[in-house]
């Protein structure tokens, strides 16, 4: 009896807490991210977490919410990076213009690859995206005059950025972190709005049952293409920020391992959750960084962590936490 009353009393407050957190997820994440440079071992790592967190979030938009497993997202990350990098290094465009160009290039490429690949489903979709992305990789590898080829694109260091009358030292790691944070938060806010909008529900409808979504009257192809392009745009933005951060664009950004990275980060954090990809990216980069300084046999330990995560946290770290909390408060 007492138990029931207690349970009845906690339930609404638990649900409230959860709903409040859900509603304020972007501001809460922003606060957490703002503290990140002082929590993780280095500021360079913090910037990487921001960039790859955004990249994984962009990938999750397609994989977690629209249910399409792409193995070709390196193409959009790389297109953003090369788009911005080439604009900076070859045409002397300003940093902000370079970001815009990079995102636009990634968006156009996503529209193209999306239009070609959404005709297929399941494993065929994954293979088509992988093949098209590898095509982009080899084009970039051969177009040495534009991309620097295997040596990578160099000469795009941004030392100072001007925002109105303000001149910020972009070589300072803390300044760099917060400038990049502004872009990441803006993107996260847009994604959050999108997921709460009817379009978010439409994507999930397509994920759950494609034929049913079509029967209700949704234009499934259009929803898929839009989801694919939006996902590409977000990953492209992450790519442009990576180019600004590292001041090089390595050819590896386009390689299929970069596509695999997004899949791993999202699965580790929890697919289909808003925060999961960020948590996954943070854990992935953090353990790699810490273990590889600690021992040359870091791969062994990272492997063990992954096996444990797959065995005991099949919904990912954040996904399992969220499900656990839901169960406790229900």
């Amino acid at each position: 009896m007492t138990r029931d009353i207690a349970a009845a009393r906690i339930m609404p407050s638990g649900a409230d807490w959860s709903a409040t957190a859900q509603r304020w997820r972007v501001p809460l994440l922003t606060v957490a991210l703002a503290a990140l440079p002082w929590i993780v071992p280095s500021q360079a790592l913090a910037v990487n977490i921001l960039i790859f967190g955004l990249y994984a979030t962009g990938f999750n938009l397609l994989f977690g919410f629209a249910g399409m497993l792409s193995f070709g997202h390196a193409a959009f990350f790389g297109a953003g990076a090369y788009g911005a990098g080439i604009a900076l290094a070859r045409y002397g465009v300003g940093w902000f213009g370079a970001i815009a160009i990079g995102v636009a290039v990634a968006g156009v490429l996503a529209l193209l690859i999306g239009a070609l690949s959404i005709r297929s489903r399941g494993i065929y979709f994954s293979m088509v995206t992988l093949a098209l992305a590898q095509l982009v990789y080899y084009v970039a590898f051969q177009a040495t005059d534009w991309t620097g080829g295997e040596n990578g694109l160099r000469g795009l260091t941004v030392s100072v950025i001007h925002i109105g009358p303000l001149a910020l030292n972009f070589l300072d790691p803390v300044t760099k972190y917060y400038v990049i944070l502004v872009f990441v938060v803006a993107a996260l806010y847009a994604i959050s709005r999108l997921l709460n909008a009817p379009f978010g529900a439409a994507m999930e409808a397509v994920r759950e049952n494609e034929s049913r979504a079509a029967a209700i009257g949704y234009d499934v192809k259009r929803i898929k293409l839009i989801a694919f392009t939006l996902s590409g745009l977000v990953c492209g933005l992450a790519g442009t920020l990576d180019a600004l951060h590292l001041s090089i664009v390595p050819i590896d950004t386009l390689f299929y391992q970069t596509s695999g990275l997004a899949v791993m980060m999202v699965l580790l954090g929890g697919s289909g959750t808003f925060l999961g990809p960020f948590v996954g990216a943070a854990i992935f980069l953090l353990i790699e960084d810490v273990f590889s300084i600690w021992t040359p046999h870091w791969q062994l330990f990272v492997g063990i962590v992954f096996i444990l995560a797959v065995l005991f946290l099949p919904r990912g770290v954040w996904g399992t936490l969220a499900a656990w909390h839901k169960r406790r408060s229900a």
Partner: protein
Amino acid sequence: MHETKTTIGRRTLLGGTIATLAAPALLLRVARAADEPIRIGFPTPLTGPFGAEAKDQVRCAELAIKQFNAAGGLKGRQVELLVRDDKLNRGEAATRTLELIEKDKVACIVGALSSSVQLAVNEVTKARGMLYVSISQSDTITAMPDFSRTTFHEALNPHMTAGAVARHVFKPGMKVAILLADYAYGQEMAAGFRSAAAAIGGIDIVLEQKHPFGAADYSTFLPRLRAAKADVVCICNFGRDQANSIKQAVDFGLKRQSKIVVPVLLYNQRLAGSPEAFEGIIGGSNYYWTIEDHVPTAKAFNDAYRADTSGGVPSDYGAYGYAGIRLVLDAMRRAGSVDADALVHQIENAKYDTYKGPETMRACDHQAVQSVLILQSKAKAAMKNATDLFDVLAMDDGSEANLRSCADLGHVAGK
């Protein structure tokens, strides 16, 4: 009951998460507060196909640091080597270099193996006015626009290495075929052979066959090489690729028909391969331990290495690790400081002999002018012991004439 449990659970979880995340940061803060040694960052690919070379580089770099510290350090200040695995990945190398500069406050960066990775490191160091000594082959890093005032190249470069080998092997009237790994190292080495062939004259390059980096199977490329019926086949690849391609070329009977030549004959890859496969193959090198017979600094370096590793001998790429660190440490001692400008000033026109005989640093492009050894792999019967791998056929003395001119590299005359 239920209520209490839920509340504590959540709080514990939050507290636990924060504590876990904060722990490494706190530990680092504590470590930083301790006595400050001079730090040198050393990004290198401990994992990946160049792992054997990288590990020996670290061993030799540590040896140089140990000697410096034993001799009193810099006015009593000790030097510490911070080794970071760059995983042979350019992005990782750039991140690690940023970490070394921003967090670890290193005095300079030495290291990176592979042309593209050193260019990534260089991009980060040059924007921050940080001294960087590269110890792996590249023609690009000393040329404009990659070159900077704080960029130094202690390793041989492809132009001088392939050039020295070609001058030794190529004769007018020869037919030459080239197998190259399709990335900067292979392309620059092939270019080195081509320009040397043009300088010698009367040499016909009948085939240039590319293979992808890290290829395990060469059977698709070898028939074309055999069909080319060349007098000399130059195999331009590095690390594991070298041992793999040479073994398969020999199995294919290429050696019976052509002389096989490599730009850099790697000590570790010869060990990984067999004496039979490598027998008679000619290649260049920055270092081979037997030069100790007539080079006193090589003798001292070998002896220190032997004492350190209970009887081993340093490899060619390992020796670069020693040379790169010595270049910086000797400059620190001469300058009496770790200030980047002072170090650049000390190294820029340095004449030194740390491990292989005299070297000079060319002022315009910061390339170490040094000798190139021409080595030939021994037959098994001729080997006296497990480290007796090569004959030194010749020593191509260091000369600016063997380098591309400062103007060719894009450096303004007079600088």
